[in-house]
């Protein structure tokens, strides 16, 4: 039995946990859901000893844990897979796993023992990883496995997973869910934070909903529905799924022919890509992550140099035509906006206040200029006002332009980035993983905004590993596999089976 009682936690002025009490039955899978910033990660951080609570007690199997001591928590058999992975990029998988659980001063025996144990665990749970691979070079899905192995290696009897599926492909997510059930059978207690209600319904025994630092409800999973949970989280009814009139595709905005791209090792990541994007149409790119979608997106966005093939942007009214190579700055001037997949590293400057991040890439906007143009002076008041406007449009919380970008939760950071990119009425929007790690309410907001943009005549290229999202938004679907387009279909002709078949195809010319 795990019991958190009367937990209070304040971060400066933010009251992130307001007297939370949570009890988890041993050997069960317990879901924890809530909007971005509801306090889920904070609560789990307290259980795991990362943050000392201001008030409250933590008990595991009747023993009180020393607050704020990860060492104590680990000793009590608690393991945690963090939302942002806690790995050393430069270490090998094995070194990452062993760290903190080494057996003696000299490393070699520990590493050898860990190798055996990791291979055993891998066999038992199907968690295949190369123990000698360098973490920084692995895809996120594998890193996730490493994180889980890390916890299991320490003999965790209680496993906390903070949004584990946010970065996983559907297949990987399914595999994870299978594994969680397997762990449960072995008697492990699992605490699962997620924004995906389907997962909650699929694997959990009970689920707790948090809102604004408080627990608003705990339900037996069997006795609840997706709609009820969504409503509990957001405090109102939520509607997801297709809505509105069908698309009215217009003229071709962007056409790409014969795109290819090789990485530094000479491996072909893209080849023979032909693609047309039209006004008033959302084109969804589906595929298992790592099949060239990111490369395609970044190539179009000017973040990678063009190696072969051609990309043209058609002229449109007063906006001139463009032929790649073009840099991201020029592309923005031409009306091409880009919401990157990695909002932390690319989309924002975490150390900037929100209003400064809100001008990233658009500092030449006349609306925030001041004085003679040659000086390039910026009008701070206009910038703040503009940022406040974006925050209002997208319900960014808190709507305070003076907050440091890093302090917003991921969902709100994402809303800010999208607001910025949509602000200047682009004619083409390139958007990757728009709702990764974002709560249901925010997903709704973002989806609605994308549809509105399409209806205003913008062309949208949407890259997402969430099939649901593609099916909900796209008017036309392109499936990528191993760097090639292996299928293209209208929305109405698409279903999961067809798309899944295309995803599995491939075969690539090196």
């Amino acid at each position: 039995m795990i019991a958190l009682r009367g937990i209070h936690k304040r971060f400066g002025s933010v009251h992130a946990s307001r007297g939370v009490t949570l009890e988890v039955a041993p050997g069960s899978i317990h879901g924890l859901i809530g909007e971005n910033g509801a306090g889920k990660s904070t609560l789990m951080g307290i259980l795991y000893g990362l943050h000392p609570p201001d008030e409250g007690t933590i008990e595991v199997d009747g023993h009180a844990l020393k607050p704020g001591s990860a060492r104590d928590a680990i000793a009590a058999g608690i393991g945690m897979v963090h939302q942002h992975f806690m790995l050393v990029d430069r270490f090998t998988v094995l070194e990452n796993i062993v760290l903190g659980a080494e057996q003696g001063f000299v490393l070699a025996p520990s590493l050898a023992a860990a190798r055996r144990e990791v291979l055993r665990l891998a066999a038992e749970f199907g968690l295949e990883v190369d123990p000698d691979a360098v973490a920084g070079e692995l895809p996120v899905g594998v890193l996730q496995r490493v994180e889980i192995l890390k916890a299991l290696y320490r003999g965790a009897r209680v496993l906390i997973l903070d949004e584990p599926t946010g970065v996983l492909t559907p297949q990987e997510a399914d595999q994870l869910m299978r594994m969680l059930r397997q762990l449960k059978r072995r008697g492990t207690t699992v605490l699962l934070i997620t924004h995906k209600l389907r997962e909650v319904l699929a694997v959990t025994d009970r689920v707790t909903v948090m809102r604004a630092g408080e627990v608003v409800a705990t339900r037996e999973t069997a006795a609840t529905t997706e709609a009820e949970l969504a409503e509990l989280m957001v405090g109102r009814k939520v509607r997801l799924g297709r809505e509105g009139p069908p698309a009215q595709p217009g003229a071709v905005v962007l056409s790409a022919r014969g795109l290819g791209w090789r990485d530094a090792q000479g491996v072909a990541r893209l080849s023979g890509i032909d693609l047309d994007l039209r006004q008033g149409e959302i084109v969804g790119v589906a595929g298992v992550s790592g099949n060239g979608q990111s490369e395609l997106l970044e190539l179009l966005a000017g973040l990678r140099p063009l190696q072969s093939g051609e990309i043209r942007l058609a002229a449109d009214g007063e906006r001139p035509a463009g032929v790649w190579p073009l840099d991201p700055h020029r592309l923005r001037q031409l009306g091409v906006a880009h919401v990157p997949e990695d909002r932390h590293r690319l989309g924002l400057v975490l150390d900037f206040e929100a209003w400064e991040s809100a001008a990233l890439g658009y500092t030449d906007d006349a609306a925030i200029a001041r004085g003679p143009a040659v000086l390039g002076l910026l009008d701070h008041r206009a910038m703040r006002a503009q940022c406040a406007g974006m925050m209002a449009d997208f319900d960014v919380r808190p709507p305070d332009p003076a907050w440091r970008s890093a302090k917003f939760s991921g969902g709100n950071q994402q809303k800010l980035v999208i607001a910025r990119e949509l602000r200047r009425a682009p004619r083409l929007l390139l958007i990757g993983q728009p709702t990764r790690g974002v709560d249901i309410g925010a997903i709704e907001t973002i989806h609605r905004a994308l549809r509105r943009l399409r209806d205003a005549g913008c062309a949208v290229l949407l890259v997402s590993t969430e099939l649901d999202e593609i099916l909900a938004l796209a008017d036309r679907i392109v499936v990528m596999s191993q760097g090639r387009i292996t299928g293209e279909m209208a929305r109405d002709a698409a279903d999961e089976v067809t798309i899944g078949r295309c995803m599995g195809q491939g075969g690539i010319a090196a």
Partner: protein
Amino acid sequence: MSELQELATVVASVLGATLRISVPLVLCALAGVLSERAGVIDIGLEGKLLAAAFAAAVAGAFGWPAGAALLAAVAAGMALSAVHGLACIRFRGDQIVSGVAINILALGLTAVIGLHLFQRGGRTPDVPPEGRFGVLFDEAARAVQDWPLIGPLLAEALLRHTLLTWLAFALVPAVWWLLYRTRFGLRLRAVGENPAMVDAAGISVAGLRWRAVLLAGVLCGIGGAFLTLAQNASFTPGMSAGRGFMALAAMVFGHWHPVRALWACLLFGLLDAVAIRLQGTVLPGLGAVPVELIQALPYLFTVVLLAGFFGRAQAPAALGQSFTKER
């Protein structure tokens, strides 16, 4: 004496000089590697080296045996390291400012205390010969130095060195082993890359950094002792003369890796030894080269090498960041 033998003598003396010049660089660079791998920038190598040299010279001048004077130097290095740790680890001060402060403080304090103790303008009296680290294998060197070709090489380049030289070079594999083959090393490197992870693993970030920083002090201490107990026999204010900064450069050059840093130090040492050798010689075709140009050669060469052959150095990811539990 044949021309070949002469050449061997020249090569031997240049190699011998290379090793001697490298010793303080190697020790300080290793110190830098340990500290910076744990995420703590160490601009204060220069100051620690100087303070340690001073402590060793003072102890030696008071008649302490060489070993005890070495310990005094190590203690001085660790004392300044402790100041650095207090500032950067305990109180989360800026690591570069702290290093700069240590450099200034060491420069001033050594001279002041030296003046106070000996009234010689900060200089210390000579350490008596028995208090110094003498050449270890002088007999053997004498025996072999007249052998054809390899004689001078064995004698000058290899045998005529002090215990501290051997120690410095032996410490390179030792530090490598510590960093890459032990639990402590694994954790130390982790703390310089991702302290939050180390914290989440239930290990004290501050504790690890403290140990790394103090170890750096030990190494600088040995380097300082080398200056005043082996190379020289007394302390002169400011005698570290920028070696700490060169070591810093060597450490970066060596990508924060002990063995690669060793190569960088040896390269600096070799360039310097060659430059010393070249001074005053008339280069064929060029005539008499200005001394300044020859003195600048090692630096020019380093820049060229850096530009041509060495890829981007990847600093430890969390270098310079103080760690707070509450992000």
